[in-house]
């Protein structure tokens, strides 16, 4: 079935109910995962409102580490400082994307219509889901087939197929 069709500046998405449920569940898990980095320390609440005051050290969980990479590769001090100032805001933007993605799927209608923001939330959230799944599957360099759960691998590939299909209809 054709899942994505251009309609004006927007895109129409058609999914089976089971696919819709799967995507909603993955988005909820992504939000939960990101939430583990989304809490400021109480002293930093005011800064947190401006998206400042996150952690300084990279996440130990490889999925989070891939979603929230260091901005400096060979300068640990600069990387820490930058992370402290920007990570919380990055987490918030990623969560916002995932929520927008969820909202586009909430209706029981057979099709969802994405405007420009909706399209961005889909592209970015599908990417974040795949990054997190790849970390769980230990897909680390080109050519890694992925180890572990076959179902998870299938979902990973399917998300890539979905994203590729969406990109095909974009200008």
């Amino acid at each position: 079935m054709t899942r994505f069709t251009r309609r004006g500046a927007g895109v129409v998405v058609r999914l089976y109910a089971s696919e819709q449920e799967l995507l909603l569940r993955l988005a909820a898990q992504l939000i939960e995962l990101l939430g583990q980095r989304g809490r400021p320390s109480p002293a930093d609440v005011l800064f947190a409102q401006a998206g400042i005051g996150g952690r300084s050290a990279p996440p130990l969980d490889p999925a989070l580490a891939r979603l929230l990479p260091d901005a400096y590769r060979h300068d640990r001090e600069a990387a820490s400082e930058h992370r402290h100032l920007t990570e919380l805001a990055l987490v918030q933007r990623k969560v916002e994307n995932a929520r927008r993605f969820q909202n586009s799927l909430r209706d029981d209608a057979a099709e969802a219509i994405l405007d420009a923001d909706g399209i961005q939330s889909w592209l970015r959230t599908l990417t974040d889901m795949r990054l997190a799944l790849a970390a769980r599957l230990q897909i680390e360099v080109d050519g890694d087939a992925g180890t572990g759960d076959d179902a998870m691998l299938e979902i990973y590939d399917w998300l890539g197929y979905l994203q590729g299909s969406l990109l095909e209809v974009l200008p």
Partner: protein
Amino acid sequence: MTTLTEASSMTTMSESSSLRLGGPVPHPAPARGSSPVCTSHPLLRSASGSDTLERLDLSTRDATDAPWLTIVWNDPVNLQTYVSYVFRTYFGFTASRAERLMLQVHNDGRAVVASGGREQMERHVEAMHDYGLWATLTRDAP
């Protein structure tokens, strides 16, 4: 490709087993009530290509004074079509330039996609992280 039955079987399996996208984390933060306030962020500032282009042009001019570089690194996850799309829509590159840089990332493991002042390169890197691309900034040639 994916049929309804495949999709529903995936659904069932993901419920039952190890789809641990939000899996256990070594050091969870203590929950102290206050969740972060979701300020509204210009999520799509990256989508407005013209502003970016303008800034890029400025950056090229003072590149010798402030030779910071934005580098995008290869990763096994992101689709080539997606990386090209990001280069086109965020940086405003032509399709052929975006394609060339994407292939450079893929084949050489990295590509310099912008140069200029440090703050500006930090903004580019953050935008790339928004897209899920692996990017860093540096002062030295990679």
